[in-house]
């Protein structure tokens, strides 16, 4: 094979690859973006728009969701505004609470905790990462080893211990998750800082007599943040899963707040009797949300690389 054919073959392959990959990746990116936007919207307005009170039990206990075949007719009723019995789209649980309302209200707990924890660890992690990347090599190495130790704790057990020690409140969960996620951001930011700090504009700023802290904050940090911001989307998804998990084992949000993990735990006993809906709907909500954040983060990463 001649050099030209190799070259042409490689170029062709790249073109085809890019051509095939783009539509699917774009679709996932937009789907993920829609999920992220919806979850953030529900975090703010969720508890205000629900059809039933999420805290007051109703009379209908363990009512199953409407049959799939009846859904269109019910939808028509709702849209036309014809008077109808209250509809429990996702059914009710053993206390008679409307599951649909609780699933919509839960982001106020799950998403808020995950976003808060990540905002906190993004700020802490990128500043520590900036310090570790700009400091003398041995200081940087020491910072990274400490960060390694924190990261080496088994996340779930650490979370349970911390929540047990500090008491069960939303703030405790935020702090726990923030502490556990900070090393991820430290590592990402530091490796990008190491690349950015050897670029020409950094040396040019030094030549202009700018101080090292000034250069670090004005030139290096803004250019080193992109990977951490992208990671944030994926990590928020996992933090939602973690919040639900901690609540499931009783180390998270206090019942009876609407929260997906608590709802799954409450419905766990009913599943064995064939009453699937109290657990399955919140479970689906978690899956869709985590997947949405991950797809959005992936799309962002691809866009950043392009």
């Amino acid at each position, binding site marked *: *094979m*001649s*050099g*030209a*054919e*190799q*070259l*042409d073959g490689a*170029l*062709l392959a790249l*073109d085809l690859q890019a051509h095939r990959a783009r539509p699917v990746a774009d679709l996932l990116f937009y789907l993920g973006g829609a999920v992220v936007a919806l979850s953030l919207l529900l975090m703010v307005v969720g508890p205000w728009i629900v059809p039933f009170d999420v805290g007051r039990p109703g009379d209908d206990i363990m009512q199953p969701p409407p049959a799939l075949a009846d859904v269109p007719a019910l939808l028509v009723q709702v849209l036309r505004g014809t008077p109808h019995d209250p509809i429990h789209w996702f059914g009710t649980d053993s206390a008679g609470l409307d599951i649909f309302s609780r699933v919509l209200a839960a982001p106020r707990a799950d998403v808020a905790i995950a976003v808060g924890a990540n905002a906190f660890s993004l700020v802490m992690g990128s500043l520590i990462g900036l310090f570790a990347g700009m400091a003398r090599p041995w200081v940087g190495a020491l910072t990274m080893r400490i960060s390694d130790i924190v990261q080496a704790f088994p996340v779930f057990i650490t979370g349970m211990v911390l929540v047990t020690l500090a008491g069960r409140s939303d703030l405790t969960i935020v702090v726990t998750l923030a502490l556990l996620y900070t090393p991820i951001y430290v590592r990402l930011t530091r490796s990008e800082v190491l690349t950015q700090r050897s*670029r*020409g*504009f950094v*040396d*040019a*700023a*030094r*030549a*202009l*007599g*700018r*101080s090292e802290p000034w250069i670090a904050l004005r*030139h290096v940090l*803004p*250019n080193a943040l992109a990977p951490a911001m992208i990671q944030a989307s994926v990590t928020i998804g996992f933090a939602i899963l973690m919040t639900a998990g901690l609540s499931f084992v009783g180390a998270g949000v206090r019942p009876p707040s609407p929260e997906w993990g608590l709802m799954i735990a409450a419905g766990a006993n009913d599943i064995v009797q064939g009453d699937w809906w109290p657990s399955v709907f919140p479970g689906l909500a978690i899956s869709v949300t985590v997947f949405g954040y991950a797809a959005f983060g992936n799309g962002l990463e691809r866009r950043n690389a392009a």
Partner: protein
Amino acid sequence: MQPDPILSVRDLSVGFHGKTAVRAASFDVAPGEIVGLTGDSGSGKSTLGLALLGLVRQPGRILGGQVLLEGTDFLALPEAERRSRRGRQIGLIVQNPRGALSPLHTVGGQIQSVLRAHQPVDAAQSSKRAVGLLRDLGLNDPERRAGAFPHEISGGMAQRVLIAMAVGAGPRVLVADEPTSGLDVTIQAQFLDELARTARATGSAVLLMTQDLGIIANYCDRVMVMQAGAIVADGETRAFFAAPSDEYSRTVLALRHAPPPAAPSDPAPLLQVDGLTKHFPLSGSKKVLQAVDRVTFEIGRGETLGLVGESGSGKTTVGRCLLRLIEPDGGTITFDGHELTRASGKELRTLRRRVQIVFQDPLDALDPRWTVAAIVGEALDRPDPKRTAELLDLVGLGPEVARLRPRSLSAGAQQRVSIARAIAADPALIVLDEPTSALTPLARVGIVKLLRDLQARLGMSYLFISHDLNTVEQLSHRVAVMYMGQIVELGTREQVFEAPLHPYARALLAAHLAPDPAARRIDRPREAGLAGEIPSPIDLPPGCYLAGRCPDVQSACRTTPQALQHLGDGRLVRCTPAARARSVRVEMSMREQADG
């Protein structure tokens, strides 16, 4: 009578998405002829070259025309037939030799696969022939090299492997697309010598595409110039260089033979560097890499010192040490009466502003998130839109550029922003670290002209670091040649360019391809060049670092380190035999004068 053309192109057009990249190109190439094809980046040279082999980068398409190879229209043949003729009848040498070789196969194996694709030879024959090709191309120990993988050989060797692959099956026409971009000058000259010799010996024609008019002047019989997809000039080399017919070539050649503006004669130097030394420790071993070794020089006010040398010679490290971007291990740097090497804290920050730097990669030197106004403003004490506009005007940019971010500017304009930022600090010295190497020929001329004008207007000094001897000649008053971290020769531009004394400087200048067909390298008798490979900077020989490669080596050179010798006329040479030979010559001419 002209022989029948071996390659005849008629109205060849190539388009990309409705845009025409090559517009009705027509030309002939005779057997044994080396034709140069030049033009600025994006003028369509590479696209034309690939189209001659019936290849286009996606999503391009050949829109029409004929490529007659020995009378047959290559483009009209079925793809299977074209594939069998590629390599056999028309060969291609691409840039980036390493990228064109498969990292998983030995270089010998890759040459053999070309041979076997086109000739009825068995494994043993093709293996013998591959080794023979490498030997013909001047590789030492070709048997061992043939068994090497691409990462085990140097860039120059990889380039020769590509020639072997391209000429292996004996094509009558060779298309070479920027075959020497990224190579050091001495390797570039060796490579082009081999290419020209091979072409002449086999009577094949070469179409050599390059932006470097020096290569064309020294090797090509004819020149074609492309601009916006069309061939705008086609003529014999000497006539072309005597009076370029097109605007592009006239602009690129505008500064040829134009010496830089004279430096003011001020006896007190601005900068004195004495015994500057920098070692880099190698991680995981006790050895050190000697980047800069006892470098000593001065720069006067308003003067430009050109610092030349091949990659790894330490010239960039010297420049960075002057700003203390790298901390020197030894020696002193005295700048305007202050010792830079001892300054610290606030004094260092103030002194630093008087020494500025412009880097090779213009995009890397500008913060991508900042606007041009902010970048230039960084050098000012407080934001000052009026001064910023003045500075942009000084470097030839309009005020509308101020709002833009670096990415939306051309490389030449980016480099102008870097220069504006440097002069904003009102420096007395600017270190120019290969500022023109990443630019197209047109942008390069613009920057060289700008640097000359700025020096004439503002009177600052330059340390101009470059491997491009043409721009060094256009900017420098004095020139220092570096080899393995040492200055081996220092003198005025005329002294170094016209009569270099140190054997390394002689070899470097002999490989210099001036855009002037007066003394073409291809017509010059082959002189004894440097042999072998550059020694590793980690294990340096005890004596002269050049002893292993020097054509004039004497036994003392291998054991005695060479010191810089002052010759009477202000020049410095790190070679005892060369200095002695010269003083004998000077003595003889003085005696002759006394006798006469």
